């Protein structure tokens, strides 16, 4: 039985690397950058890096919960696109209502995938794949295939303003990370989630509300994807349903897995997920800032993912 905040299960070297490797790698990369990259430790650069990783990080938080239950949510990019298409539609009624509509849409998307997974028994990868395919189309249908500028001053402020030098979007992401972290570590729901992921049958025998827990994690994932969509759209100051959130599901899954949450479920590491997202952001930034082409950066990323998971060695989880 592992709990979410348990000490490393094994204190062998591999165990240590698995549990703390992501922080170690992050620290190392930071040092490398201090030496190699000009203007790395400037407030401007750090702010840029933080702002760039916001959508991936927020989505990775929800993904960590879903992966903790042995599931996966491939629909997050399409949910982002749907919210991006919805956001400009209701701006006549004020920014608050538009954002509310978007969050509801995210929850609805989560309800659909969650229902299919929890109550029908469809495999997570297939249920959310259907929404990935259909959701992107739906977003384009809603938007009528055109980009719309977002002129609402409040949303523009949300997307590009900052308080005391910290951008609002980064603040929101940090707040969400703390909330999700507390949810996993300090609530009954968090413990139930880990139990369901570790052994669904045993959890059901123990009388845990397995179906409700599963449904809830997909709804949370959908809402978080919607928040990411709202923030990304506000930052661009334009709605872009055809491209927004493309491949972000893969980036989020990578951040979660590199951060030490196994794909086989039963363990969630939120702090690791944050570190994983930061690591991925920093890898890309480091390579690009040092004039390594984007394509090589992508290949390096692939190898780093493989190395990270090789270290984790997730037994026989073949999905």
């Amino acid at each position: 039985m592992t709990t979410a905040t348990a000490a490393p299960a094994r204190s062998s070297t591999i165990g240590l690397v698995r549990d703390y490797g992501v922080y170690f790698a992050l620290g190392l990369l930071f040092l490398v950058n201090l030496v190699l990259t000009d203007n790395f430790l400037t407030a401007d650069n750090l702010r840029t890096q933080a702002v760039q990783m916001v959508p991936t990080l927020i989505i990775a938080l929800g993904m960590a919960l879903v992966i903790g239950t042995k599931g996966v949510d491939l629909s997050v990019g399409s949910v982002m696109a749907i919210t991006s298409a919805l956001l400009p539609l209701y701006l006549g009624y004020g920014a608050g209502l538009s954002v509310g509509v978007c969050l509801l849409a995210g929850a609805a998307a989560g309800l659909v995938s969650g229902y299919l997974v929890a109550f029908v028994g469809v495999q997570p990868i297939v249920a959310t794949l259907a929404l990935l395919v259909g959701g992107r189309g739906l977003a384009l249908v809603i938007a009528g295939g055109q980009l719309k500028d977002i002129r609402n001053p409040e949303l523009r402020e949300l997307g590009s303003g900052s308080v005391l030098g910290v951008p609002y979007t980064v603040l929101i992401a940090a707040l969400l990370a703390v909330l999700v972290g507390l949810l996993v570590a300090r609530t009954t729901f968090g413990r139930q989630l880990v139990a369901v992921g570790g052994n669904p049958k045993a959890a059901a025998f123990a009388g845990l509300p397995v179906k409700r827990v599963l449904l809830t994690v997909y709804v949370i994932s959908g809402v978080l994807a919607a928040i990411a969509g709202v923030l990304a759209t506000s930052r661009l100051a334009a709605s872009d349903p055809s491209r927004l959130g493309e491949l972000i599901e893969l980036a989020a899954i990578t951040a979660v897995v590199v951060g030490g949450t196994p794909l086989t479920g039963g363990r969630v590491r939120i702090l690791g997920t944050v570190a994983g997202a930061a690591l991925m952001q920093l890898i890309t930034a480091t390579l690009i800032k040092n004039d390594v082409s984007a394509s090589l950066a992508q290949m390096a990323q692939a190898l780093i993912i493989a190395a990270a998971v090789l270290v984790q060695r997730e037994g026989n989880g073949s999905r």
Partner: protein
Amino acid sequence: MTTAPATAAPAEANRRGQQVAQLVQRHGALIVLAVLLAVGGLAFDTFLTAYNLGNLAVQASFLAVIALGMTMVIITGGIDLSVGSVYALSGVLAAYGAREWGLLGAFALPLAVSAAIGLAHGLLVGKAKMAAFIVTLGGLLFARGLLQFLTAEGSQTYLVPQTETAFLELGQGRILGLGIPVLIVLVLYLLGGLVLQRTRFGMRLFAIGGSEDASSLMGLPVARTKVSVYVISAVLAGLAGILSAAQLGSGVTVIGVGLELDAIAAVVIGGTLLVGGAGSVGGTLAGVALLFVIRDVINQVGGFDSSMQLVVSGGFLVVVVVLQTLLSRAKRR
């Protein structure tokens, strides 16, 4: 799930129910395909013409080749997310190979690179026991990155020289009115069906997908079989890329994005269970055909933009998957 034997009379009814459920699951895609073709033929004059169907078949052939490999991987309980990227990379390599070394280069270079990528996947999944999802996700990123690198971030296009008529013929030619890619698909699926149903290797795929632990205990070479299946999948994706280069006459860098999802969708619609241990290549072929016929019917209806195709495909996938899940439950009772 209980599998307790019931009394005689209900058991008989039960078995018949199971047979029906199995039949629908096996041939559901084919039934829906027939219905759609009939409806499309009645509604649109231009739909059931040899010209239209011939074109559709050629367009669908690339996905069909990829989905064949995906079927085998999924039968073992794995997944291969890299096929779209490997397909695009192969197309570029084939065009480059054709330019440098002619027909031989057009085949040897992309197939060698694809096989190497498949081997890496297979070793990591089969020998190192890593999650297929993550490994092949890495493969997706890697192959796409390599493709961008080779084409100077997508700015350079390699053309197949017009003198390479034999190679271009492969993608554009027709025999007896059928496009050559379509013929290749038919041959490959026949082979694939034979391998799955009639060879020891095919039986192993089902056994591993059914229960990996049991397969190991029985002494089946689990790791080796898995390595082979990822190599096959990558090589087939590579072959699809070669065919696309032959058809388009150049290595197009932007193709294949999201193609792995289409392939998975086709496999699932065709009745192969994602949990592994069951599936058929015929179903996958019907699934591929179905995806393309849906798109074509939506095009023929007109008034919709292409995004509506995505909505319908996604909705269709949901319906199919829900039905399949319910049917497989009925089978277990």
